[in-house]
């Protein structure tokens, strides 16, 4: 069983915002809503600047699901967290609960009135007939039903952003870390996903 996840390689992200643009274009996301965005720390500091692309991380134990008062969220067999806009009341609890700031709210009227929540769907659509006009209008493109992966990850020019089955992308990232001899210590992947039969990256090695 695939368990869909995103992984952003901060060593590779060049802050081009190609993923943001791809998402906007693929899903025709309205003005003011950003399902995906690039966050940069130490901006302009030589050698210390790092960027990472952030969207819904499709948590295994999602806090948005836990706090939703109308229980509009659900998780698919592929581990994708989706929500039903017909049930959403736009209360904003999920926005406060989410550690990644994934839930977005379009302005629905005067005085900052919030519309129904919008977030990354892992390009998996929502609770409408797959590949229907209704699904596209509410939730955007359903690339998984077309045998594709999210547009942001597939568009990434440096392949910093990986999307897909967690085991597969963890293997791809592990291969990179072993090649460049560093990186596992940053995120703890060696601990979380390392295989006992594989040698760890040499300590202190530089790429």
């Amino acid at each position: 069983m695939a368990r869909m996840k995103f992984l952003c390689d901060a060593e590779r992200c060049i802050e081009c915002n190609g993923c943001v643009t791809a998402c906007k274009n693929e899903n025709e996301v309205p003005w003011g809503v950003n399902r995906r965005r690039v966050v940069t720390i130490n901006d302009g500091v030589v050698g210390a600047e790092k960027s990472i692309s952030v969207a819904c991380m499709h948590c295994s134990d999602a806090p948005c699901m836990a706090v939703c008062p109308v229980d509009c969220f659900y998780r698919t067999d592929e581990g994708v967290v989706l929500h039903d806009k017909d049930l959403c009341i736009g209360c904003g609890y999920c926005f406060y609960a989410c550690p990644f700031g994934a839930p977005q709210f379009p302005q629905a009227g005067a005085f900052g009135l919030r519309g129904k929540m919008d977030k990354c769907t892992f390009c998996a659509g929502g609770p409408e007939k797959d590949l229907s006009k209704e699904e596209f209008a509410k939730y955007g493109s359903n690339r998984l039903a077309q045998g594709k992966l999210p547009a942001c990850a597939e568009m990434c020019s440096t392949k910093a952003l990986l999307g897909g089955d967690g085991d597969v992308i963890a293997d791809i990232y592990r291969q990179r870390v072993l090649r460049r001899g560093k990186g596992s210590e940053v995120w703890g992947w060696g601990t979380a996903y390392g295989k006992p039969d594989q040698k760890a990256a040499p300590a202190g090695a530089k790429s």
Partner: protein
Amino acid sequence: MNKTGKLVLAIAALAVAAGLSACGEREQVIVYKQGKYQGKPDSKPWESDPAASLYTSSKWTPGDKTSWESAVRNRNLAQNEYNRVQ
């Protein structure tokens, strides 16, 4: 085996059962029945017809989960540029 031995064995078995219960993976999808996830209507991605989508190179048999997963996995592996440059 005397009574104390049996008691120790029973406690040990209970401790092992309780300890190992934390090692399992909890089912994440709570309910899927009659085309609904927890009451929200949605179909599964492998139920769609690959011919219905434009511009895709993925091929699978509609309704066959294994072939869909295989198609997506191939697409997923294409993200590894080491496979292409070596």
